[in-house]
């Protein structure tokens, strides 16, 4: 018996892995993350309580993924396991799509319904006449209460946003070139284009950080700037978080490529990261259109 209880029976391709401590570490890590956040938000502790959770999560990811990568390199996983992983990744990305859908839904609802109501149009115009008769519905807006100050500047679709669109679309191209290189066994080209992809990803994040700083210092545009600031920062912020995670995943598969992992036929991890990267790309396109442009 291999250490991984790996009885892939010849006729069935079934595979049952052995027990592992990592899932329970993951549950504890998530609990620490949440309890840490509760303690901080309730003012019981200072910000230190936010630390143990993420630290444990880092340990967890390193531990769990090195176990899985190690087992994979030993050739324990058969094609059926590979297919399970693929399906799981697709459904995971679908759940992420639905998470973003909630925030896009909030943006659309606020723009199409709430702001016109507050401006005195439609079925729920009463608040306008009773509370804010002088408010005019416009977009962008920080609401009838002018939250975050009377004046703020909206984000422009030209400038950093356009540049970032170009960067992310290019990175979608470079990862596709890298994938083709992997499939045709051109490892040199694979390494270069994969590296280019995550460099573009980190550049995107750096530019976004710059954009945020500009918003706070020069434009008076903050998270607290009414519904515009709220939707802008929450949507682009969650997206930026996903770009960061995606770029880290790209670095990891790049390191694996350097170590000689992946074959032209079998490279699930590469494909999973590539799917994730394309997903992040598509979300950005929606953001660019609906948050910056229209």
């Amino acid at each position, binding site marked *: 018996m291999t250490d991984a209880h790996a009885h892939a029976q010849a006729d069935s391709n079934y595979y049952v892995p052995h027990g*592992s401590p990592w899932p*329970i570490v993951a549950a504890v890590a998530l609990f620490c993350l949440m309890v840490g956040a509760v303690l901080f938000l309730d003012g019981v502790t200072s910000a230190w309580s936010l630390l143990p959770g993420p630290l444990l999560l880092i340990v967890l990811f390193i531990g769990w993924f090195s176990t899985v990568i190690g087992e994979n390199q030993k050739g324990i996983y058969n094609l*059926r396991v590979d297919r399970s992983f693929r399906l799981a990744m697709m459904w995971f990305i679908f759940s992420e799509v639905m998470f973003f859908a909630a925030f896009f839904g909030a943006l659309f609802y606020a723009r199409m319904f709430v702001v016109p109501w507050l401006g005195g149009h439609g079925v729920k115009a009463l608040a306008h006449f009773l509370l804010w008769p002088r408010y005019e519905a416009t977009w962008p807006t920080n609401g009838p209460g002018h939250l975050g100050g009377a004046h703020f500047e909206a984000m422009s679709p030209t400038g950093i946003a356009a540049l970032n669109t170009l960067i992310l679309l290019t990175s979608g191209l470079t990862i596709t070139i890298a994938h083709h290189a992997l499939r045709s066994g051109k490892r040199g080209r694979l390494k270069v284009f994969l590296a280019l992809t995550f460099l573009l990803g980190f550049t995107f994040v750096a530019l976004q950080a710059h954009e945020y700083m500009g918003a706070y210092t020069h434009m008076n545009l903050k998270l607290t700037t009414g519904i515009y600031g709220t939707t802008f920062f929450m949507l682009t912020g969650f997206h930026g978080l996903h770009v960061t995670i995606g770029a880290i995943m790209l670095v990891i598969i790049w390191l694996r490529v350097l170590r000689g992992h992946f074959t032209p036929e079998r490279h699930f991890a590469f494909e999973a990261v590539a799917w994730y990267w394309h997903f992040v790309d598509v979300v950005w396109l929606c953001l660019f259109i609906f948050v910056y442009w229209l």
Partner: protein
Amino acid sequence: MDQPYESTAHADHEHKPHGWRRWVFATNHKDIGTMYLIFAGVMFFLGGAAAMAIRAQLFKSGMELFDPGVYNSLVTMHALLMIFGAVMPAWVGLANWMIPMQIGAPDMALPRLNNLSFWILPFAGTLLVSSFFVPGGAPAGGWTMYPPLMEQFGASFPMVVFAIHLLGISSILGAINIVVTIMNLRAPGMSLLRMPLFVWAWLITAYLLIAVMPVLAGAVTMLLTDHFFGTSFFNAAGGGSPVMFMHIFWFFGHPEVYILILPAFGVISEIIPTFSRKPLFGYEAMVYATASIAFLSFIVWGHHMFTVGMPVAAQLFFMLSTMLIAVPTGVKVFNWTATMWRGSLSFEPPMLFAVAFLFLFTIGGFSGLMLALVPADYQYHGTYFVVAHFHYVLVPGAVFAIIGAIYYWLPKWSGRMYDMRLAKWHFWLSVISVNVLFFPQHFLGLAGMPRRIADYAPQFTDWNMVSSIGGFVFGASQLLFPYIIWRCVRAGKPAEARPWDGARGLEWELPSPAPYHSWQTPPSEAMLAHGAEH
């Protein structure tokens, strides 16, 4: 062919890890399923204790057992514990136990992920329950967490938000595992339209879970940032709206109630043919009906908020789409009835619970239709009629189906029979008391008693007293259930591989108790054909 499947397993396959490691590092679908069911049981009794407290407070007008704030916390926690702690985990536990056995697989597709999705639960449950004991007490705004009320609670507010995040992560991971198992681990020859209906119901439920749990996560995240970081999602002064929360919440919430009930449809579709000794009537229609219900669940959420002030066009749309659900649901009810028609019926405990489900769930369905009518809903909204409606679909609906499923499959799990006489007592006490408990609530609602209220006008006292008596009997009779299971597992008589002579399906081809890794080698075509339910 009543020869049970002989395991060709080697000795090393049967060897299980021992002691605490078996549970903490578990990767076996049966062990994890057992843990899910035990967790669900604990939460069921905690949520039940809250329910008893609620019924005690409402026993008569002016009871004042609890202060209204505590009473509202009890109502909120009762709902959260029952939905996220009891019913959902119970279904995932049943999925864990049954899906690999029913599709001819050795285990779930992603056993370690399976372990994680279980072990998140006790932590999330701890976070949720401990919110009772922090300054300000547990949230008291109801399980729907509407702002701005929800945001006015003290230290417990972030606890509940994060508990819901954890429960959501657990559900999404569990659902992904279930979808992948069904798509990838079916035995050769088991095409999609040969799958048992419990598997079909779960496939569709898992899809709903993956689609809507992230939306709930988004909604509670917005509550959190509105409260702590000054965002304006639900703040009209900033250009947001509390009504927006209701839309996002119910976009999750309506599919959620089908997440609670669709696996029940699967279970009933297994039990009724077994004890009617007839194949299920209209197998394919059942599959398509389940899928239609799931699809419709995404476009009916507005019926929870008819009274907030909604354009007439939207009210009409949500009213009609809601009433449309009656069509596939009717298909199911008629198919179950047609399955029993001229069947050779016998009434063992699982069948009793299934038949009670059929009648009482249908009552809940009809009161749902009444609530779907916009003009009528203006009258019923926020009254005890709504409470009666959803308790009819959730208690003699989802909970009876879970109890029935456990009575149906317990001999397969434990290899032992339980005390039928006691289980029938459990049934009759439950089915009578559940009606005494919830039926009068229809009258109270129609007479105008509001829901979520710590005290009421004296004219509502009589039916509340009846309802409370029913509640206490129902609560007490549920104590029989763990006792029956415990007796069965400790000292029940050995069960045959096929303890119900009418039972069809791959799980009955395995010996009782089923081997640790259910199907080491895929079942043969003969077993598949024999197991086929249709």
